[in-house]
């Protein structure tokens, strides 16, 4: 069955690029522009994975992730996050990976593949 991925990022160029990459590799891709938009859309879309930018306007990401219980989340961040903060963030069980921007396209595909196989 085709898996659905929700991309949440406030930058349209990043949303579009990631969308094309993932669509080309056989996923169904939806986008949201920020945390609130993401929360609105998940009930209807029921994505298998959310690619969530860590810094966005509106509700802080820390708040957003608390409201998402049973969907896998992978963070994307342009800021280098220290190991200590990563540990803190990954406490929640459904947080599965962490992508450093700028990412490598083939690396992104590989890791998303691994996450959704499980």
């Amino acid at each position, binding site marked *: 069955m085709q898996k659905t991925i929700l991309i949440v990022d406030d*930058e349209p160029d990043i949303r579009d690029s990631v969308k094309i990459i993932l669509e*080309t590799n056989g996923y169904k891709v939806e986008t949201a522009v920020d945390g609130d938009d993401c929360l609105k859309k998940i009930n209807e879309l029921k994505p298998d994975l959310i690619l969530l930018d860590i810094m966005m306007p509106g509700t802080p990401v820390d708040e957003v992730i608390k409201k998402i219980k049973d969907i896998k989340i992978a963070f994307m961040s*342009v800021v*280098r996050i220290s190991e200590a903060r990563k540990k803190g963030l990954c406490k929640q069980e459904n947080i599965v990976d962490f992508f450093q921007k700028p990412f*490598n396209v083939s690396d992104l595909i590989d890791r998303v593949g691994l996450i959704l196989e499980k």
Partner: protein
Amino acid sequence: MQKEFNIKNLLYSKINRKLTLLFLIVGFVAPTLTIFYFYTVAVSSFPENVFAEQISLLGIIAIMTVVLISINAGIIGFFVSRSISKPIKKLYNATLELEKGNYETKVDIKTNDEIEELGHAFNLTTATLTKMEQERKEIDNAKTEFLSITSHELRSPMTPMKAQLQMLKEGYFGKLSKKQKESLSIIIRNADRLDNIIADFLEISRIEAARLKFDFRETDVTQLIKDTIAFMQGFANEKNITLVKEIKNLPLIKADPDRISQVLRNLINNAIKFSDENNKIEVSAELKNDYIMFSVRDYGCGLSSENQIRIFEPFYQVENSTRRKHGGTGLGLTICRGIIESQKGKIWVESQLGKGCKFYFTVPLTPVIDIEPIKMLFSQKDVMERKIHEEFKIVLGPLGEVEFNELKNKNALNKDDLIKYIDSLTGLYILVPEKSEDFKNKIREIFGEEKETIIKKKNEILCDNKLEGVLK
């Protein structure tokens, strides 16, 4: 440091002794002479019988008057001297504070004279200094902030840009011709390079703002070095270079293994770049008093004395360097310095042209609690020159000023030349051997060498001297 309270010191500090003494003497001698004069006049002019009744009373009054006047004069002297010496002492103490960098020092002098004016002028000066210091701090913070923000802002557009470039190359939008692929490779390579520079700038801005994150945890340094070497061996294989390790039993320490590994990888990477093929690189670590000293030694082209100082500066290029061939951002060693110095460690290099380099760095056994901001963008050379200048003035006095400038003109302010110069001073009997040894140690310290190695060297020299003595 709190000085112990002592009433004697307190009184002495308030009294200008000489001035008070002068008042006391004048206050004693002058009335004594006058009263003695009146006394003799009185004695000679009164009839004897009248005077005999009054003589004792008159004598007591005369002595009392003298004593009272001299005490009065003494008290006046005390206050006069205090009014002069106390405000001057105040001013002196305030300038000492100023020297320590405490620009908010104010003096409160109310003597209604030139000293008060001087105190007022002093306060105006410190007010200006305070303002300038504040401005300097603001500019410094703004610079760090600006560096950090621009780096982030620069990095954001890199994400879609690099993604789209890779997509193009991977054929997401159709097949590319050979020429198009080549062109794209060049763009991608340079986009990567730009991104690396931006990432390094971000790192530097973090170090400067003391925002570098350390994750101190129990670390097995031996294993850490083994892992790092195993990782780097892959790169070394391209030039058929062997990585050799020499580790003397190290304890488990509390440190940030990722940061240590980052510095090691950087140094090994440099060593590989500047080594010829089929060579070897030695990585060692040993326990010193309260730190572990790491070193990476290569047998490459080596560094001149001038370059040894400047190699840690951002974007510093070794002359005739083949950096373009080698790649890299030119910020690697600067970041290494920042990482090490943020943890209160030291990093330095020993080298001889044509004989390779040995980079040292130290990591304290107990991690620092407060990470301090490290100035990365200042030229190391200027800072060192200032220190050497100071040292010259301390050891050689006014002569040091002249000598320093002469050496500077000769471009001889590097470690080897300075040591040679100090030896020549000893040879000319300008410095006694002990003093010159201290001088040399100070110079070595300025160049970043750890005390431990300095002491070791001192012992070696002593041993050598003894040996020579025995041989003779």
